[in-house]
Every structure is written in C-alpha cells, then in structure tokens.
C-alpha cells in the first residue's frame, strides 16, 4: 500500500510536470520560450513517471527495461530539442512571424 502511494505521488508529479509543459507551450508566444518549456519538462516528467512505474512494478526485469527507456529518452529528447532550436536560430528573421513558411496552400 505504501509502495502504491509513493508510486502514485511520483506519477502524479510527472503528470503535473507534463501538464505544465503543455500549458507553457500554449502560453508562450516565441519559439525559444516554447522549446525551453517543452525540452525541460520532457526530461523531468519522463524521469518522474518512469520512477513511479518502477516503484509500482517492483524490482524485476521490467525495471531494467524502464531504465533503458529512460536512457533513450534522455539521449534523444535534448538532442532533438537542440536541433529544433538551432533551426529556429539559423532561420531567424527580423520580422519573425513566419519562419520556415512553406510556399503553396
């Protein structure tokens, strides 16, 4: 029971972080602010939720798999966020309304 409560606390914290990320992505206007929110909260929320799952599932082979998922997420997510931000910075214009605008309707 105590284990369940601890796991629930972790998972709810992770969901809160993700909700904050979603709120921030909608709230902020500029691309870099939005990417800041998205990238940071991605890593932290994944950590919290996966720790909750590990506690919930107990120590078994599944724990190792969850750890691998966490490692993969921690490697890929910051790199992807960095690349998106880099594309934004590279294509920055003075009137930064329509970067990467696509011709054609």
């Amino acid at each position, binding site marked *: 029971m105590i284990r369940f409560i601890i796991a629930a606390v972790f998972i709810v914290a992770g969901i809160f972080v993700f909700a904050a990320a979603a709120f921030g992505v909608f709230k902020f206007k500029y691309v870099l602010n939005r990417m800041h929110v998205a990238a940071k909260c991605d890593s932290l929320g994944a950590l919290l939720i996966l720790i909750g799952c590990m506690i919930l599932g107990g120590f078994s082979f599944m724990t190792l798999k969850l750890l691998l998922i966490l490692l993969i997420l921690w490697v890929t997510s910051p790199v992807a966020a960095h690349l998106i931000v880099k594309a934004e910075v*590279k294509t920055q*214009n003075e009137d930064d309304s329509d*970067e*990467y605008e696509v*011709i*054609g309707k």
Partner: protein
Amino acid sequence: MIILEFALITFLIVCAIAFTFSKRLLTSVIIFMAYSLIMSIIWLIMESPDLAITEAAVGAGVTSVLLFLALKKVNALKGKKDE
C-alpha cells in the same frame, strides 16, 4: 482502457482533420508524424505489435524524413538563411 482508446481515437481524428486543413506543407508533415505515432499506439492496443513497430518506424520515422527532404528538394521551405 476504454477512456484511453477514446482519447487516442479523438486525437487521431483531430490530427486527420488538421492534416487536411493546414495551410503549410511543413505543418502538414509534422501533423502526419503525430498521426502515425498515435496510430502505432492504437495498433499496440489492438494487440498487433508487428504493425505497431512497422508504423512507428516507417510512418513516423522514414516517411517524415523523406517528406521533409522532398519539401527541401522542391524549395518549398522558404526563409532559409543559407540560401
């Protein structure tokens, strides 16, 4: 589980409609990526992991990269500083 399925299918329909109505091709491709990812999760829920793996690899990964490259090839991505 039923709530999750309904949420996923709702998101799938929203993605399909947004994919059709988006004005920019780049946005369309990104929405298509999201569509493929949701679709792969739905395949997993419907107990066909083979299709889920294929959909995640082909639909969300390779196809999107090829579409981005095609957009770049026909110079549909405007606003690059390097050009």
